[in-house]
C-alpha cells in the first residue's frame, strides 16, 4: 500500500491533466498521473516527418480502419497521417441515443496532441450571460478573477495572436501574429468597410517566436509545416506531451503511468473524503488501488463524468458528488451546421509560402453591444483563403498536356469559413451509465443523448445568412452555403457534465473546481463549464486547471483537505 500512495493523483494526461501535473509537481506534490491509453513521449511521433508520398493511399482512410473506427472515421477527421491518435471504437463502445460524435484520443497527451490549437479567452460577456439571461446557473467566477490565470496559461503555452481591443474577445499575452494572406487582408478590409465587422488572424498555440520564458528548453519555434496533428518533433505547438508533462517530469515529483483505466473513485464516508482511485490495467486486466490526499479528474467531460457516475456509495447513490442531480447533464459543444465558401477574382500574381497552421477568425458580433437578435448568444467564424489545388479539375474536361500546363499555374483563390455557435446548457442533454451493457473490460457503457434545440436552430439561420452576406458584400463569386448534418460532439468540444456554481443544489463543483460534497476531488476538464461561449475552450481549461491546482495546494497546506 505504501508504494501506491501519493500526495496527488491526476486522472488523464491531456490538456487539463498535463496542467494539473505541472502545477502540482512544481508546488512539491508527489503526483501520480494515470493515463488510460498508451505511452507517448516527446518527440516520438510516428508519422511526424513523413513526406506526403510516404503516406499510403494518398492519405485516404482504408475500409479496414473504417471498420475498427466507425465513429471516428465518419467525421472525416482521421487520415493515415494521424489515425493512430483516434480511438478504436469497437474496443471503446458507447450508446448513441441521439447521434453523438465522441472523438477520443486514448494515449498520453490525449487530444492536446490532436487539437486545432485555437486559443481564445472567454470574456465578461460569456461569464455574465447565464446570470443576466436566467439561463442554466450563474458562473461563480468573474472574468477579472480568471484573467491572471489566462495570462499564465498563454505565457507558458505560447499563444500567437493580435491585440484587438474587443470587449467580446479579450486580448491576452501574445507572441507575434501569423500573417493574413493577401486575399484575407482584402476580405478584412471589405468586411470592415461594408459591414463594420472584424476579421482577425486566429489566436493559436504555435510558437511564431521563441517562448518568453525558459521553462521549456525542449520546445523550438513553429516551422510552418502545418502537420501539427501528427505531433511536432520541433515542439512548435503546445501539447501536454511537448510542454506541461516535461515540466512535471523535471521536478522529479511525477510518476506517469500509461494503460491505466481509472474507473472509480474510492470514497471514505467516515472521513468524508476520497482516498484514491480504482484502476484496471488495460493490457493485463489487473486491478490496483492508488491512494492520495487529493484527486484531479482531467479525463475529459465525458470521461470524468463517467468515473463519477460509476463511483456510487451509500453517501453518493447516484454518482460521486451528485447531490444536485446535474452530474452528466448539460452537455454542450459548438454547433457547426455547415461550411461556406466563395471564389475570389484576381490576386493571380501572388500566393503564399510556408504552411500556416492557423486561419482567420471573425469574432462574435451578434448580441454584442446594441445588436439584438431573436435568440441568445452568438457565433464566430473560422476560415481561410487559399489557392485551389488539383481538385479544381473535377468540374472540367481538360486532360493531357493541357491539364499538366494548367496545373502549373496556381489555381484561383477561394475563401471558406465555418461558423461555431454557442449551445445553451440543457438539463436534458445528458450522459448516463447503462450497467447492463458492458465493454470488453466489463465496465458499463456510457449512454449519450444530446441535441441542438430551438435557440441553436434560430441562430443557425444567422450563421448561414451572415456567411453569405459577408462573402457577397466582399464581392466574391459563387457563394455557397452548405447545410451539413451536425451531430453534437462533432466540434470535439463536449463539456458541461459537472458544472460549477455557488449553489450545491444546482451544481456539482464550486468555483475552484472542487466537488461541493467532497472537497479533495477537483474536476478541471470541460466538465465544469456552466455555459460555453462560442470560442474554442482549451485555453479556458488550462487557466482553470492552474487556478484549481493553486487552490488545492494552498488548502492542503492549511490542512483543509
Amino acid at each position: 500500500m505504501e508504494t501506491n500512495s501519493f500526495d496527488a493523483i491526476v486522472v488523464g494526461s491531456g490538456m487539463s491533466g498535463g496542467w494539473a501535473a505541472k502545477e502540482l509537481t512544481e508546488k512539491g506534490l508527489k503526483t501520480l498521473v494515470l493515463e488510460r491509453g498508451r505511452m507517448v513521449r516527446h518527440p516520438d511521433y510516428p508519422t511526424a516527418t513523413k513526406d506526403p508520398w510516404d503516406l499510403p493511399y494518398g492519405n485516404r482512410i482504408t475500409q479496414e480502419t473504417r471498420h475498427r473506427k466507425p465513429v471516428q472515421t465518419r467525421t472525416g477527421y482521421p487520415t493515415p497521417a494521424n489515425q493512430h491518435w483516434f480511438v478504436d471504437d469497437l474496443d471503446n463502445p458507447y450508446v448513441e441515443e441521439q447521434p453523438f460524435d465522441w472523438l477520443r484520443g486514448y494515449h498520453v497527451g490525449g487530444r492536446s496532441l490532436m487539437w486545432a490549437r485555437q486559443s481564445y479567452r472567454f470574456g465578461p460577456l460569456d461569464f455574465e450571460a447565464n446570470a443576466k439571461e436566467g439561463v442554466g446557473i450563474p458562473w461563480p467566477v468573474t472574468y477579472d478573477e480568471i484573467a491572471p490565470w489566462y495570462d499564465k496559461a498563454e505565457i507558458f503555452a505560447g499563444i500567437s495572436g493580435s491585440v484587438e481591443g474587443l470587449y467580446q474577445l479579450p486580448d491576452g499575452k501574445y507572441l507575434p501574429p501569423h500573417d493574413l494572406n493577401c486575399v484575407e487582408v482584402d476580405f478584412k478590409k471589405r468586411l470592415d468597410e461594408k459591414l463594420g465587422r472584424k476579421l482577425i488572424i486566429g489566436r493559436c498555440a504555435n510558437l511564431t517566436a521563441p517562448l518568453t520564458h525558459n521553462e521549456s528548453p525542449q520546445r523550438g519555434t513553429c516551422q510552418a509545416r502545418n502537420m501539427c496533428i501528427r505531433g511536432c518533433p520541433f515542439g512548435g505547438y503546445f501539447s501536454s506531451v511537448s510542454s506541461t508533462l516535461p515540466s512535471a517530469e523535471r521536478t522529479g515529483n511525477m510518476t506517469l503511468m500509461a494503460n491505466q483505466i481509472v474507473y472509480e473513485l474510492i470514497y471514505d464516508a467516515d472521513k468524508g473524503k476520497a482516498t484514491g482511485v480504482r484502476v484496471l490495467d488495460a493490457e493485463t486486466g489487473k486491478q490496483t488501488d492508488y491512494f492520495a490526499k487529493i484527486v484531479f479528474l482531467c479525463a475529459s467531460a465525458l470521461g470524468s463524468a463517467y468515473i463519477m457516475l460509476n463511483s456510487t456509495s451509500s453517501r453518493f447513490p447516484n454518482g460521486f458528488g451528485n447531490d444536485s442531480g446535474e452530474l452528466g447533464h448539460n452537455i454542450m459543444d459548438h454547433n457547426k451546421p455547415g461550411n461556406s465558401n466563395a471564389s475570389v477574382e484576381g490576386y493571380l500574381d501572388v500566393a503564399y509560402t510556408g504552411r500556416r497552421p492557423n486561419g482567420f477568425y471573425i469574432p462574435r458580433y451578434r448580441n454584442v453591444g446594441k445588436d439584438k437578435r431573436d435568440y441568445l448568444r452568438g457565433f464566430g467564424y473560422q476560415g481561410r483563403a487559399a489557392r485551389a489545388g488539383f481538385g479544381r479539375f473535377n468540374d472540367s474536361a481538360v486532360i493531357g498536356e493541357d491539364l499538366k500546363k494548367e496545373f502549373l499555374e496556381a489555381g484561383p483563390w477561394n475563401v471558406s469559413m465555418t461558423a461555431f455557435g454557442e449551445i445553451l446548457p440543457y438539463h436534458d442533454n445528458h450522459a448516463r451509465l447503462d450497467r447492463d451493457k458492458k465493454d470488453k473490460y466489463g465496465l458499463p457503457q456510457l449512454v449519450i443523448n444530446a441535441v441542438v434545440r430551438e435557440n441553436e436552430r434560430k441562430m443557425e439561420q444567422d450563421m448561414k445568412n451572415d456567411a453569405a452576406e459577408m462573402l457577397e458584400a466582399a464581392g466574391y463569386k459563387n457563394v455557397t452555403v452548405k447545410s451539413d448534418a451536425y451531430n453534437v460532439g462533432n466540434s470535439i468540444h463536449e463539456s458541461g457534465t459537472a458544472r460549477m456554481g455557488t449553489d450545491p443544489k444546482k451544481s456539482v463543483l464550486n468555483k475552484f473546481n472542487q466537488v461541493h460534497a467532497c472537497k479533495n476531488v477537483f474536476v478541471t476538464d470541460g466538465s465544469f463549464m456552466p455555459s460555453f461561449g462560442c470560442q474554442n475552450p482549451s485555453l479556458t481549461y488550462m487557466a482553470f486547471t492552474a487556478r484549481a491546482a493553486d487552490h488545492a495546494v494552498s488548502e492542503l497546506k492549511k490542512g483543509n483537505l
Partner: protein
Amino acid sequence: MSDVMMQRREVLRRVAWMLGGAVSAPAALAILQGCSARDPAVSATAFKPKFLTAPSQMDIVTEVAEIIIPKTDTSGAKDAGVPAFIDSVLADVYPKDAQERFAVGLGGFAAAAAAASGKPFLEQDPAQRIAFVKQSLETALEGERNPKPFILMARELTLLGFFTSRVGITENMEYVAVPTAYHGCVPLSQMKKHVYWE
C-alpha cells in the same frame, strides 16, 4: 459537332442507360473479357493487381490514367505509379458499392469504346483513345454525377495518385518539408514554382 462525334455520344448514352446500375459486376467482367486484346508494352509490367484482376482491366485503367496525365517533358501517370495506386485504393479504400460501380463502369467504358470504333480500346490508335476518353469525360460532366460515373472516378483517382506521388509533387510544385516560416503574400515571380505544396 461532327456526325461521328454525335454517334459516339449516342452510343455512350445508350450503354450508360443499358448498364445503369442494373448490370452486376460479373456481367461487366464478361463485357471486358469480350475485348481482351492487350497492349504488349503495358502488360510487360510486373505489377500484380489486387482489385483490377480481370483480363484487360489493369491495362485499360493504365492507359486511361496515362491519357489523363501523359508523360511529356515531365513525368506522367505511369512514371508516378498511378496505375498501381488506383488498384490499391480500389482494393482497400473504396467501399463495396463504389468498387462495383467502378468495375461495372469500366466494363461499360470498354464496351462503348469498342462499339464506337469497331476496335477494342487497347487496339485503337492513341488519337482514337484520347478522343474517346475526352468524349466520355464531356458526356459524364453533362450527365448525372451522383453517383460518379466510371470516367470521373478514374480521373479523380488519377489526379489523387499523381499529385500525391513523389514525382507528381516535386516536378509540379514547390515542396518544402520544413518551410520554417509562413509568408502570406508573395509575388509568384519570387517563387520557384507557382504552386506551393500544402
